[in-house]
């Protein structure tokens, strides 16, 4: 991370700009219409935008580039020879890869949106603290689950890239789906009411949207527990599925070069 300080700061600048435009557009939409029937307030929608910008790298739209490279160069053969479970090895590596990028960005984004914005007098557009202490604790738990869930999805992308020997096409197709359904594009609650149940139950909601709902106290008590349970359920399903897919792929894999 620190070796690429300029690149990381540049990425952070991009995320701030993006978040800023989102916030201005949301404010404009909220400004005119009748507020009856909006499931979340403008303040919440704004905090949601900053939160999802901070958690951006948690959104599983890319396979781990190291795995893709190992497959292309044939280095994947070494991973097959190691006396450890290959799935567990890649899982741990991908989880580390994601966590190492997410933590500094969340911290920077919080510093910008929660501290710097109110200081320059843009308090209305700032990142607000969680609904309560309990919500904060539950949010932390949910974030850890989100990291694991995200990793189990990245694993599927890794395996697909291994099967296809090329990650670019898969990454290009996975991106749009994940960005919409995780809530990164727009809070899922602002999408049409008729879709809400389906949107909440699908696996991508656990990456950004469920942690965010818990953060605002829109899910609390039993509902928060149900949210955490839903995240855990999808982690288990995706890990089991990923293990099976990986076994099949690895059996068929022809290692390139030497």
């Amino acid at each position, binding site marked *: 991370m620190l070796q690429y300080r300029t690149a990381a700061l540049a990425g952070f600048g991009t995320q701030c700009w993006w978040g800023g435009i989102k916030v201005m557009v949301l404010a404009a939409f909220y400004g005119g219409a009748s507020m009856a029937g909006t499931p979340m307030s403008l303040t919440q929608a704004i905090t949601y935008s900053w939160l999802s910008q901070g958690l951006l790298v948690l959104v599983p739209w890319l396979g781990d580039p190291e795995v893709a490279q190992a497959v292309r160069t044939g280095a994947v053969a070494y991973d097959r020879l190691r006396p450890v479970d290959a799935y567990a090895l890649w899982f741990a590596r991908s989880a580390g890869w994601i966590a190492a990028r997410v933590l500094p960005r969340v911290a920077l984004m919080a510093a910008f949106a929660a501290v710097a914005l109110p200081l320059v007098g843009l308090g209305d557009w700032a990142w607000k603290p969680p609904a309560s202490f309990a919500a904060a604790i539950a949010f932390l738990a949910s974030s850890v689950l989100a990291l694991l869930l995200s990793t189990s999805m990245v694993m599927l992308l890794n395996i697909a890239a291994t099967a296809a020997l090329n990650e670019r096409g898969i990454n*290009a197709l996975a*991106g*749009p789906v994940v960005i919409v359904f995780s809530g990164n594009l727009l809070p899922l609650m602002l999408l049409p009411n008729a879709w809400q149940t389906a949107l909440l139950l699908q696996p991508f909601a656990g990456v950004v949207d469920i942690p965010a709902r818990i953060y605002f106290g829109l899910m609390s008590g039993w509902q928060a527990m149900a949210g955490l349970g839903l995240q855990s359920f999808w982690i288990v399903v995706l890990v089991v599925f990923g293990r099976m897919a990986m076994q099949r792929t690895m059996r068929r894999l022809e290692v390139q070069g030497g």
Partner: protein
Amino acid sequence: MGSLRLLMRLVAASLSGQARYPASALMLTTGQFLGTGIEVIAVWALFHRFGEVQGWQLGEVALFYGLVNCMFAVADALGRGFDTLGTEFLRTGAFDRLLLRPRPVALQLMGHDFRISRAGRLLQGALVLVFATVQANIAWTPAAIGIALFALAGGAALFLGILVLQGTLSFWTVESLEIANVLTYGGVQAAQYPLALYAQWFRRVLTFIVPLACVAYYPALAILGKPDPLGAPAWMGLVSPLAGFVFLAAAFGVWRFGLRHYASTGS
């Protein structure tokens, strides 16, 4: 050989190279189509929930969206060479070879990597324009078509100028920096909504520093026959796309300065 013919040849060579891998080209184009299409979902969902935004209807906003995406698709297809300048040419030293050829370097870069996949964004923008025409009842009179084409040309020039600036920056940084995305993709994102929604300082940036408003907002108002809620005169949309060409000329000025100060890595 004239510059334009040379560019055409380079573009044709680049395209036929990508056509050798049809499945990959198709997948990348589809990816571009879907990837740029997701923003439509956000726009649509917000209108679905809120009905309108400060008096703007979905069809009208779709016109901005379609115009901006078409102009960026054209510039992005032409200007990707400037994006890869740092990683592909400067670091490897391959740039020195371009300098030895008795042709403009910028021209060689533009033809170097003309991306088929950008057709995905262009198609998506065009579809949104059709949608806007139906929804907002846009009358495509010859005058309106003229304004739209002028705006598209100005917008493509503006975005190309941004890519040229990004390339110029890599003379100093060697890296191709993600920060340029603020102006390219971020510019597309900002310009796909009516300027009137934004805070005043942001409107000024988009008009006087990076004149996105001049190539999208004012011409679209002229096409819609809608007065500017902020009070700009109606003829503004007829001349404002010129700002895109001015921006491109300025960008090439900076480019020449960068080129003069370029020192090879020697590798």
